[in-house]
């Protein structure tokens, strides 16, 4: 069976999808939760989360225990656009 590698963009898509659809509570998803669900290493996830927060796609909320991440309205728009263009690229047999 051929191994398919995820692109950087698809990892971002997975992280945003997790924060939108699978957050354990309203405050958002923790880093540990995202590592497990999005299947990304801590080092890589930290960099991506930093970028997503700076771009306004994720909202970061800090509690006394740990940082939690929740998808923003901008993030939802991005995710919708990403899915549309992913379908388009899929039609060409390509991955974005």
């Amino acid at each position, binding site marked *: 069976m051929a191994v398919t590698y995820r*692109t950087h*963009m698809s990892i*971002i898509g997975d992280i945003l999808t997790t924060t939108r659809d699978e957050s354990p509570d309203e405050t958002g998803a923790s880093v540990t939760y995202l590592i497990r669900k999005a299947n990304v290493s801590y080092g890589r996830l930290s960099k991506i989360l930093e*970028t*997503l927060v700076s*771009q306004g*796609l994720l909202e970061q909320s800090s509690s006394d225990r740990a940082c939690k991440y929740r998808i923003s309205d*901008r993030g939802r*728009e*991005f995710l*919708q*656009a*990403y899915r*549309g*263009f992913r*379908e*388009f*690229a*899929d*039609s*060409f*047999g*390509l*991955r*974005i």
Partner: protein
Amino acid sequence: MEVVFESALNLLGFVVGLVLGIFTHIGFRNTGSPTLFRLNIAFFSIGIGFGVVGFGDLMELWVFKYTTVDTWIQTLGIGIQTVGYFFIAFSHGIKSFFPKSRYFKSIAAPLFILPGNSIEHIIRSISFILLVYGTIETIMSYMESRKRSALFVATGLGLLALGEFLGWYSIVFPKSILYFVSVSTKIVGLGALFVPISQVPMRGGMRIGGNV
């Protein structure tokens, strides 16, 4: 009259290519995806290539009043289109297309050397090979995903390849209807690439920074 009709078809290809290019440009601006960037270059090149041939023919006919159309405009336009076909094939990972073994090189090399008497021959043969490669890759993708839109894209690329082949063959029979059929086939092929766009939900104001 025949030249005007062929120009109109080429200009239609110009519009279709530009629309596809604009769509993929929006996709690139939204997602920052390198794949969409390559498709963006591909479709703009294809559209501009059609435009060069179409506008070039009209310019010659109406502005310069030539009775015969110079071949260099045709060659330039087809060359620009080939750049576009290259980027579509490149998106599939063109490195895997060129085998490394000496045996395969010895078979593949003459394909590029034989039509060396004309630049247009070479360009068209490269376009044909790139498009056939793109078609095969897309069919393979369809076999995995079973998405109908992939089938339309494969058909579109296949028709573009057939159009290039007929265009090349029209050099052998210059006075025949082959060139007209070639351009028509390419336009239909380009039109088939529109199908995936119709499935993307476009909303107004969908602009998100591409530095993700």
